[in-house]
């Protein structure tokens, strides 16, 4: 104990900074969810007539979506890696990842709704004059939501796969196994996935947790009467009636139980698969060239979504079944409410800058082994966490305050900042800092004058990721901000409930543009700074 207390002050500062973000959650969980630990509450949840259908919708979207996302990511990786197609896909991933979930859902709505662009395209051949009477979005089984989750999350999974594939050993193992006579498909199945999957555990859990508890996408594309469990829980939690609030807390806890069950199920299947792997038979299958256009499958929806949003935002009138607006106009942009954009801008900039500072302190002076805990908010369903945040802020009388809002976003911004920075930060050549110290710099001077400038590119990249994460936050903004702060995300989601598609398209597009601007800044600033320094990467 004396040993730990003798750590330098900076260590305690680093721990304190991170603890400020995480620690209030514990009492918050107790305050927020203890009314739900009550058999009567669970009984009334059980008897609620909406719950069975809502559970079906949650299970189909929450399991089918991630499962399809896995298939897409695995199929693309197996078919394209290593090769030019893989590199091209990897180059496009950051842009695709920057598209927020809500904006993607709105774009998809414009594409696949009965009056959407796809129906118009088909209608050209079948001479439709009115939209078909199909239920393609907000269907009772949440299949549209599952599709949206599958496409959106496949990019995140591919990005995680790319991170583990970057290592030399994987490429060499592939060559080695091919020289033993095996086809690519066999090698992926028998050699690479069994070794890579255990390291992809947390991204898979993150996708599952997100899909089960997503609210913004479910409000846009999911069923309405009844909605998914997550939306139901969220509506109850916002209800002034304490009894319904408790029921909402119980439903949020139920999502946590579903998540734990899902993780256990996947883990069990994996262990069974391990057990079932027989003795290698040595059967070599001939190589078959991949027929499916994987690259297009993964990128086309992203581009189509942004294109249809852009088109709607400048459309004057665009009636079914026209493929193209009758006239273009800048009126929707001129008349746009830009208040939410400014709120989003200062909120995201403050939060990502603050989190970057905290993470720098943490990586430099904090404990080296505790990162796993910080990733927890990325995995577990967000609803119970937001409920806990709200309860904690109510007790501190900080609800609906700017500080409270920034703090609530930090719970998700901080882990993503850490996640993107930890690799390059740990890979930094420490001999450079030692050299600076030997030349007379103090430890912090060495960071400030040598280490951090040299790490400018990854620092700004993780700042931009934090910015994008903050822009995309829906639940904490609405819940913790008590509706007092409108961001482009909350605005877009509330506009999606009906009304003017042009106004909706503008807000959704702003939601896409803000993170893209942050990424552009993060990549152009280091390039400008290093214009005379070829070795400064």
């Amino acid at each position, binding site marked *: 104990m004396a040993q730990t207390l003798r750590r330098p002050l900076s260590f305690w500062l680093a721990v304190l900074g991170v603890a400020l973000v995480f620690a209030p959650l514990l009492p918050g969980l107790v305050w927020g969810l203890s009314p739900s630990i009550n058999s009567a509450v669970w009984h009334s949840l059980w008897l609620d007539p909406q719950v069975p259908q809502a559970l079906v919708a949650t299970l189909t979207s929450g399991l089918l979506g991630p499962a399809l996302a896995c298939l897409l990511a695995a199929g693309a990786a197996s078919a394209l890696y290593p090769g030019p197609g893989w590199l091209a896909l990897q180059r496009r991933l950051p842009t695709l990842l920057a598209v927020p979930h809500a904006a993607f859902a709105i774009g998809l709505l414009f594409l696949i709704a009965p009056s959407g662009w796809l129906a118009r395209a088909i209608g050209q051949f079948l001479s439709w004059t009115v939209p078909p009477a199909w239920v393609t979005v907000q269907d009772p089984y949440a299949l549209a939501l599952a599709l949206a989750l599958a496409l959106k999350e496949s990019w995140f999974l591919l990005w995680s796969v790319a991170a583990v594939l970057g290592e030399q050993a994987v490429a060499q193992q592939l060559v*080695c196994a091919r*020289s033993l*006579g095996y086809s690519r498909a066999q090698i992926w199945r028998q050699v690479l996935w069994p070794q890579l999957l255990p390291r992809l555990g947390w991204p898979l859990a993150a996708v599952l947790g997100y899909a089960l508890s997503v609210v913004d996408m479910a409000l846009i594309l999911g069923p309405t009467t009844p909605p998914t469990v997550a939306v139901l829980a969220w509506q109850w939690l916002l209800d002034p009636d304490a009894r319904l609030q408790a029921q909402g807390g119980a439903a949020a806890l139920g999502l946590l139980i579903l998540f734990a069950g899902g993780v256990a199920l996947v883990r069990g299947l994996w262990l069974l698969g391990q057990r079932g792997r027989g003795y290698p038979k*040595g059967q070599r299958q001939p190589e078959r060239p991949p027929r499916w256009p994987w690259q297009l499958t993964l990128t086309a929806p992203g581009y189509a979504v942004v294109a249809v949003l852009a088109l709607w935002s400048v459309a004057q009138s665009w009636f079914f079944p026209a493929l193209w607006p009758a006239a273009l106009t800048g009126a929707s942009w001129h008349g746009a409410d830009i208040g939410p954009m400014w709120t989003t801008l200062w909120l995201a900039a403050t939060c990502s800058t603050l989190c970057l500072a905290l993470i720098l302190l943490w990586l430099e002076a904090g404990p080296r082994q505790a990162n796993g805990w910080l990733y927890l908010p990325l995995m577990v369903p967000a609803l119970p966490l937001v409920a806990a945040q709200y309860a904690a802020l109510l007790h501190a009388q900080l609800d609906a305050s700017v500080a409270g809002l920034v703090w609530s976003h930090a719970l998700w911004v901080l882990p993503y900042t850490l996640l993107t920075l930890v690799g390059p930060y740990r890979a930094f050549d420490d001999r450079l800092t030692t050299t600076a110290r030997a030349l007379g710099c103090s430890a912090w001077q060495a960071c400030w004058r040598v280490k951090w400038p040299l790490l400018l590119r990854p620092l700004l990249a993780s700042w931009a990721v934090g910015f994008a994460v903050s822009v995309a936050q829906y639940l904490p903004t609405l819940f913790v901000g008590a509706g007092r702060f409108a961001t482009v995300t909350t605005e877009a989601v509330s506009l999606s409930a009906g009304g003017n598609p042009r106004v909706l398209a503008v807000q959704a597009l702003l939601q896409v543009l803000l993170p893209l601007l942050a990424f552009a800044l993060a990549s152009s600033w280091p390039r400008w700074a290093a214009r005379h320094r070829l070795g400064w990467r």
Partner: protein
Amino acid sequence: MLRIEHLNLTLGTTPLLVNVNLCVAAGEVVTLTGASGAGKSTLLNWLIGNLPTAFSASGALWLGPRRCDALPTEARGIGILFQDDLLFAHLSVGQNLAFALPASSTGAARRAVVEQTLAGVGLAGFHERDPATLSGGQRARVSLMRALLAQPQALLLDEPFSKLDATLRAQFRGFVFEQIARQRLPTLLVTHDAADAPPGARVIDLSTWQSGANHA
């Protein structure tokens, strides 16, 4: 016998290696040396069928009567041994070897061949072991036997001794050359260290094949 005929390797428009002609007899080990950047790994990548798209190549690769340079890696019948042993971490030592064994031996015979191979290289009883628990020398031996069990018609060695310490290195070198001689495999050893070559064998510096313009 492995034969390279009129091979030209270029990066973009820059010639790397010009008019390479080389014949390696069964059981012979030819050592290729060169400074870093001389084109060692590019030549190896061409031989194994893994040339990056930035490079282009013309010329022929023959394994006996079979022309191989247009075949994909898995159809060439060329084994490769890298610096790292590259044992598959999710399989046991024995399963790693069984992975390489052709499908022609089936059932209990497969396991018997693997056990026998292990015993033959001083690793009897290692079948169920996790590769991660083996010493560096043991792993290197398993890695070589895995390449050989696939019954290749030629073998490429990519600096396979460079990560081993001095004593182990001498032992493993002897072991590798003995196995190659026993299986009468034409072998190309690529290394930056000419001392890796077997005694009395041919050693070729890659600079012989670099374009005259660079080499005047």
